């Protein structure tokens, strides 16, 4: 997957939720979008974890 920014990922996730809640998706699309949502969630959480680790690492380097 192409490098995607946290905020962009979060925005996409929000869009998916909105579409679902507005009934804009059929069932097939829904499962596709669910898959996409899970990818985005993983990406966001990974980024948060990575950032946390990087901060600790950078501070430890001083």
């Amino acid at each position, binding site marked *: 997957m192409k490098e995607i920014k946290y905020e962009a990922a*979060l925005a996409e*996730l929000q869009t998916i*939720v909105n579409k679902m*809640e507005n009934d804009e998706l059929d069932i097939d699309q*829904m499962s596709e979008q*669910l898959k996409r*949502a899970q990818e985005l*969630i993983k990406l966001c959480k990974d980024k*948060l974890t990575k950032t*946390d680790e990087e901060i600790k690492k950078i501070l430890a380097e001083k």
Partner: protein
Amino acid sequence: MTEKRLTLYELNSLVREVIECEMPNEYWVEAELSECRESRGHCYMELIQKDEQSATPIAKASAKCWASKWMLIRPYFERTTGQRLHAGMKVLLKVYAQFHEAYGFSWIVTDIDPTYTLGDMARKRQEIIRQLKEEGVFDLQKSLGLPVFCQRIAVISSETAAGYGDFCNQLADNPYGFQFKTQLFPAIMQGEATEQSIINALNRINETYDDFDCVVIIRGGGATSDMSGFDTLALAENVANFPLPIITGIGHDRDESILDMVSHTRVKTPTAAAALLIDHLKAVLDMLNDSQDRLTHLAQQKLITLHASLITISEAIPRLFSIVRTRQEARIDGLYQRILSRIQQRAVTSQGDIRNLEQRMLAALEHKRTSERHRLEIIEEKVKALDPVLLLKRGYSITLFKGKTVRDPLALRKGDEIETRIEKGTIKSIIQ
């Protein structure tokens, strides 16, 4: 003319006798020198008294000091006053009258009181100082600062003076390796020409004063000599108004000349002048070094403080970030929950739809089955009506040959065994 005639010599002798008889004493006389010269060890002076208002001479006389006296008087006078006898000087002379037949009238000087001249000099000096102050220039030099990097020096000195050499050597051999650039503006440093000569040198420096940081006026040591050239109004004015700071090192300790008073700084000797310049630059160097040290120290202090606050801040970062992280995760989880609940809801709806379809399908099937069964019953009725047993009961029979119904007698041959079914059983017969 019957009167006795005298020769000039006789007449002059008469005058001499009268003077010698009538004025045998010595007198202290105040006078101004209008001329003063030495010849073969004797000192010849012209005395004058001027009218105080008009300054026109009201009395004049010659005076002589014989070598035998002069050799005693002169050193004492010069040591005390710091000056040679010169024209314009006020003197208090001890004299006796002498009239010589060949040389005429003359005052013979037997003593000179230098304190009188000193007093007069002091008065003159006070007058010059008063004038300088009135002109507002007396302290002008003091308001000039020595440039921080005072290294380009214009030197006014006699070219051959030992003091000039000392000055240059002292500067060149300074222990800190400072570089000084000196340029000599030669001047006569004693005697009548001193004043104008120094003024001329100052004028030459003034033409390119941007090339210099200061002026040094120095005079080599040696015999106590004539200081009168340094006590004049014109020179003082020139020095006081000069655009560059002027340092004097004209070597005398009796008291300050006016030149010293109006100059930026006075020192006693040329070497002291050099030392002053070196010390000044050394102070600048020290100041620079000190500033550097303080700057370094302050920068280090600042770094330490900043470092400490950086650590405080950086220690807060993980905590702050964990708040951010928790909030973000909650947000993501919230979104995910919404997705899940929506999907679940959708699944429920979809299942409902499916069940509904299923129901409809089952109902349709049931309907179909019922109608088919009815149709079958009708057919069954019809079939029943056609059952052969019923025909047999009514008396009809069925002939079978080899299990098949015989509908045409021609299909049978002689000797074939046929079966005939009737209501109550079967008859076997042979065709004949």
